[in-house]
């Protein structure tokens, strides 16, 4: 057991998977000597050599496109995209190829690929360094989309992602990178992709979130006088609908919180699913506390954009008072 932050937990998971499986190779911009701009791959090139930890040209489509080739040949590439906003140039290779290769070839070729991406706002970064594109990739069949909110989850989920036979986008919330430490076993463990975690049980309202927003939600739960069940999705696609359904059937009220823009965000999908599955149990419409339908602002206003405990409390009150 070690007391690790999220960066360290991911670093540890990478070390262990690389030691165990020679097929695992890392590639990306500045991940070698520099250890990545967030130092997530710190020390790995020294440990595993330039053959297994590869600094690539500055070209995201190239990183994902070559990773697809590596994966088709049977390796388990773990590319890093430096920031959420730079997934854009790789969008086509992800959606036109990584997500499609298995179904296109009826399984003759598969793409066991884990794309690591720092995600989200709150760290005073420049433009395009604070986005939350998880809905885009959740709407793209053939991918899995994962976002841990804690060091423990990060390690277990990353191991699952690397071993998964299908492409996984592994979002790492930047705001959590060094926000806190927790006990993380050195021993091998996995957290299954597709299973949410009930952070705390409650009876009056279900609060659903993922990534960094889970921390704001925990704050809101603590401050609230109501009995709130907090669900951390962990995996965004495929959604753990059973856990959500069971909770909302119990509580009758639901609030979803995410950083990404409101319209067509994952919050909409959850709201729609909750309605479909828990219609007769719902005491109030599902509330969404999200980023706005605006560009993530430069950092002077970023805290006004991001859901905070006050906005979450407001939504909880609205749902409760409905």
């Amino acid at each position, binding site marked *: 057991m070690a007391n690790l932050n999220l960066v360290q937990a991911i670093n540890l998971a990478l070390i262990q998977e690389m030691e165990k499986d020679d097929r695992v190779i890392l590639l990306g911009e500045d991940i070698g000597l520099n250890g990545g701009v967030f130092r997530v791959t710190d020390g790995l090139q020294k440990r595993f050599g330039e053959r297994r930890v590869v600094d690539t040209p500055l070209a995201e*489509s*190239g990183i994902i*496109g*070559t990773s*697809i080739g*590596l994966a088709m*040949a049977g390796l388990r590439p773990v590319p890093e995209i430096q920031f959420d906003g730079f997934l854009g140039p790789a969008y086509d290779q992800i959606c036109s190829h990584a997500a499609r290769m*298995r179904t296109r*070839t009826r399984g003759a070729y598969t793409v066991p690929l884990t794309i690591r991406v720092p995600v989200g706002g709150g760290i005073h970064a420049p433009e395009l360094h604070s986005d939350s594109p998880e809905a885009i990739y959740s709407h793209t069949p053939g991918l899995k989309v994962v976002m841990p909110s804690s060091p423990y989850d990060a390690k277990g989920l990353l191991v699952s992602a690397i071993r998964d036979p299908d492409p996984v986008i592994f979002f790492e919330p930047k705001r959590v990178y060094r926000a806190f430490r927790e006990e993380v076993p050195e021993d091998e463990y996995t957290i299954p992709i597709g299973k949410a975690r009930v952070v705390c049980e409650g009876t009056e309202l279900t609060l659903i979130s993922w990534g960094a927003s889970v921390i704001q939600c925990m704050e809101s739960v603590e401050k609230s006088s109501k009995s709130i069940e907090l669900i951390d999705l962990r995996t965004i696609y495929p959604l753990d609908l059973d856990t959500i359904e069971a909770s909302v059937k119990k509580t009758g009220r639901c609030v979803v919180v995410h950083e990404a823009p409101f319209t067509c965000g994952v919050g909409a999908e959850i709201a729609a699913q909750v309605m479909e599955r828990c219609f007769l149990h719902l005491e109030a419409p599902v509330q969404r506390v999200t980023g706005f339908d605006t560009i993530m602002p430069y950092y002077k206003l970023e805290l006004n954009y991001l859901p905070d405990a006050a906005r979450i409390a407001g939504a909880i009150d609205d749902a409760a008072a409905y």
Partner: protein
Amino acid sequence: MPRKTVLKVEIERVSILDEHGNYDAALGDGLIPDADLVRLYEAMASCRYLDEVAFKLQRSGRMGTYPQNMGQEAGSLAAAYVLDNEDWLVTCYRENCGLFWRGVPMESILLHWMGDERGNAMSRAHFATPIAVPIGTQMLHAAGLAWASKYRGEKRIACTFFGDGATSEGDFHEAANFAANLDLPVVFCCQNNFWAISTPGSIQCSAPTVAQRGIAYGMPCLQVDGNDLFACAYAVKWAAARARTESKPSFIEMVTYRLGDHTTADDARRYRDQAEVDVWKERDPLLRTRRHLEQKKLWNSSKEEAMQVRVKTEVDAAVKRAEEIPAPPVADLFNSMYAELPAQLAYQRDTMQTHSLASETAAKAEGH
């Protein structure tokens, strides 16, 4: 000091058997033994006949859009011939001839254009990737596949084909740049057929040669007559050796021509002159190979006739096999999506099937 030359580069063009029957023995001899040359000619003829048949299938509604290969058979065939059978062949959609040589069954290609993913479910033993529909994207996969063999210390290299139009896409650039800077054993073969659908070559690359695209990456580049089996074989052999022994990429421009429409959905008369097509008909790779074989007394019209019968039988049989394959079960929509089907997809599959059954029943009841 103030102005000094820091770089000098040249690009050569290789031609061994030209359209007038000139043959350069110095470069050509030993490249392709006679027996193989006959087989290669037959392979081109068979591919050509498939094009005819496929065109008719499409016109009669038995197949979707199909891109004829007509005129461009030599390049990919020469590559498949020269490469090891376990080298990766990473093609676009106008390289049937190379794929068939490699052993990909004709019905796989037919099935693909008949709208059936199982056409791509080729055996991994062919080391051929599926037809790439989004232009310019497959070269990155070739770079990754080559990288994997380098990583594993295997001898396998990757050879990728793409059109002149494809070199306009950013992914082409990234693939070439990755291969050059990370020392990946890739052979880049651009089939410059002067057209990207209706767009002439000058809009894709206004430079004097497409070959010089490779200079940007410090790659050795060669231009070859792409309708010349010998020249193509020569170039791929050279590039493959460099890839295999030095783990370095090269760039080959194969100058060729698309004798047909872009696809069956296209009508090339809208944008190009028949006169241009006629010139290129004379440069047809089949024609010159046949003439060469005849000159060498390896071929004659009775052999040709016999072969045409054989080819027809084979191709017709492949079409029959492809057409006899019934549509996949509807559940196949879902079943190849993930290694393990997520619960929600299973739910969608199951409810869809209920609905389709219900509507079938309803339709039957209404007497449709």
